[in-house]
Every structure is written in structure tokens, then in C-alpha cells.
């Protein structure tokens, strides 16, 4: 039963973060949205894996999510370094609609 609850939580997180990602313009809010989206996807993985008959949840799903978390923190670190540099060079905390010139 707890599987279904957390599966729906995962889907809910994906929906909310997708909407937030498209709607927000501030750099940090977009990074937050990507992180929540990743957490939603991992929640679906582990919720499904928790039905495994073994004492812990499905070990392969756990290994995939641990790999996913490390990849997510790497991407977040790069995104935040970029966001900081953009703010320092352009003075704006949002993506400037730059033209070609």
C-alpha cells in the first residue's frame, strides 16, 4: 500500500517541478525545479522497488538511484557555478533574451 502512496508522490513531484521549470525565470528557481524533478523520478524508482520480496527494496533500483543522486549533484554543482558566473558577468539573475549581435 505504501508503494502506491509514494508512487503518486513521485508523479506529483514530477508534475509540479515540470510546471515550475517552465514558469520560473530566476536561475536558482530553475535549479530547484530540476532537483525536485530528479527526486520525483527517483521516488518512482524506489517506490516500485519497495515491492521486492527481499529484506530491503530492490537492490538494482537502489543502485540506480544512488548513481542518479551523484549525477544529479554533479549537474547541480555545474548549474549553480554557471548561474553565479552569469549573475557576476551580466548582473541579472535571469537568462537575458540575447539577440545575435
Amino acid at each position, binding site marked *: 500500500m*505504501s508503494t502506491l502512496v*509514494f508512487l*503518486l*508522490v513521485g*508523479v*506529483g*513531484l*514530477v*508534475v*509540479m517541478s*515540470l*510546471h*515550475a521549470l*517552465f*514558469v*520560473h525565470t*530566476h536561475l*536558482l*528557481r530553475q*535549479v*530547484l*525545479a530540476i*532537483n*525536485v524533478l530528479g*527526486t520525483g523520478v*527517483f*521516488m*518512482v524508482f*524506489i517506490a516500485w*522497488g*519497495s*515491492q*521486492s*520480496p*527481499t*529484506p*530491503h527494496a*530492490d*537492490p*538494482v*533500483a*537502489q*543502485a*540506480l*538511484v*544512488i*548513481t542518479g*543522486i*551523484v*549525477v*544529479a*549533484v*554533479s549537474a547541480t*554543482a*555545474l548549474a*549553480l*557555478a554557471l*548561474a*553565479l558566473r552569469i549573475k557576476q558577468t551580466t548582473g541579472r*539573475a535571469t537568462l537575458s533574451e540575447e539577440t545575435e549581435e
Partner: protein
Amino acid sequence: MDWVLEASALSLFGPMGLALDLLLAAGLLWLAWRVLYSPDLFLSVVLFISFGLLVSLAYLRLRAPDVAMAEAAIGAALTGTLLLYTLRHMGVPIEPPRLAQHRLLTGLALLMSAGLGWAILTMPGFSDGLVVQVTQHLPQSGVEHPVTAVLLNFRAYDTMLEVAVLLLALVGVWAVSSTELRLPAPSAVLRGMVSVLLPPGLLVGGYLLWVGAYQPGGAFQGGAVLGGLLVLLFLAGWRALAAGWLLRLALGAGLLAFLAVGVLAMAGGSLLEYRLEAAKNLILFIEFFVALSVAATLAMLLLGRPGSAGEQQP
């Protein structure tokens, strides 16, 4: 540790377990909503850290302690610290967020999520084909804990590329950021706390690394704990390893160990194939260096680029 697992396996809570799950689920969704849409960005970041901790609680409820530890240490603590550090240097915006109207993309998102919900609900039952295979081959993996067996033996190639991704992210951050290693002046209180926390911290990090072979734990969780400790050390004014080739060696140690063991294994077999009797030691050898480089990388991601003298800026 086993006692906590039993508790989360509903034995203590019994029917109360479902109530706890629903409470946790509601808390997660409400916190996520606040994180994504609260007008104050600083509040969003702080709530993101508590959201991460609640998520690791959910993973405990789903009987995935390894992931719970990784989520708490890396997902909540470290990502939260990175966010706070960046927010402090970018400045908290005064005006509430201007919501750009993306009717099309929002529609696409809702459509995709409806499909997702529908797909999950019409999913056939849990097929444990792979889980049975993992438990069958566990004795040949050299470790007793299935997650570590999958991470460092059955799917070791994935983990090698993942360690490469972490190192790549660091090189990317160095390529982008120009901030020198700017650390605040160390305060006596922090120095005192670090001297108290250092020995048990190292012990916990090492224990997590070692226990990974038998119980939930392992290189990434241990590395994250040691990484947090390293950050404390830097904040408390310890500069010894802050630059130069020794730092680079520590950062690249994980990938180096993986490549070395992987290639040596090819002499007698295929890539990353450990002979049964040497498997345990090889896995521990790799895990030690991976934990070392995870700790160094996570700390350096936070502390910015060391201006080592020998190498000009790009």
C-alpha cells in the same frame, strides 16, 4: 541499525504505518509546493533542505536505507549547502518571481504527467526477475550486501562512469568559476567544534565505508560524510591540501583506482572482472579511493577553484 529497519518494516507501527505514509506523502507534496512557488527564494532553499530530509525519511519507509543515507548526505545536505552558498553570492531577489506564461509547455507537462500516472496505474505486478538473479549471484560477488554488490561488481561499469561524471563536473566548475578559494575568517567556536567532531566524524565515515560490504553503507555515503567534514576543516582555517597536485591526485583517485583495477582484471579476464577470492579486497580498494575522491570533490565543489600557482586561468 537492524532495529531501525524493523521499525520501518511496519512491525512496530502496524496499521499506524499507513497513517505515517500518508502524513509523510502530504508533507512531501506540500513542502515541494512551497519550495517551488514561495515568493522568498531564501525560504525556498531552506525548505529544500528539509524537503530532502523528508525524502530520505520516505526512502526509509520504502526499506531503502542506502538511498536514504545518500539522499540525506548528498541530496539534502550538500545540494542545500551549494544552493545557500550560491544564493549568498547572488543576493536574494527582492521582488517576487515573475511567472513567464508558457501555456504550450505547461500543457505538454500536464499531458505527459497524465500519461505517466495512467501508465503506472495500468502497470502489471512487480516482476522480481532481476532481484532473484542478484540474490543468487550474491555469493560470487565477494560482498554480502546486495546494493554494494550491484554498485561495485555487477554494474561496476556504471559506477566507473558515474565517478567520471563527478570528476567532470568539478573540472566544469573550475572551467566556469573564477572565484578564488574565498573562505571566511575561522571563528574560535567553529575551531572548537571541529576539534570535537573530527575524530568521531572520521570514524563514522570510515565505518560507513567499511560496513558497506555487510549492511547499508558504502563509498558514496562514507565519502559524503567525509566531504562534509573536509568542508568543516576548510571553514575552520585548515589550508594544507587546498591546492597543487596532491589535491588533484585526491580528486582523481576514485577514477584512477577504477581504471587500474578494471584494466588489471583484463589480464586474466574481461574488464572489471574480479576473481572470487580477491573480489572483497578489490571492492574495498576501489571503495576507499572512491570515498576519498567523493569527499575531496564534494568539498571542492563547494569551496570553489584553488588558484594553484602552476596553472594559468583559462
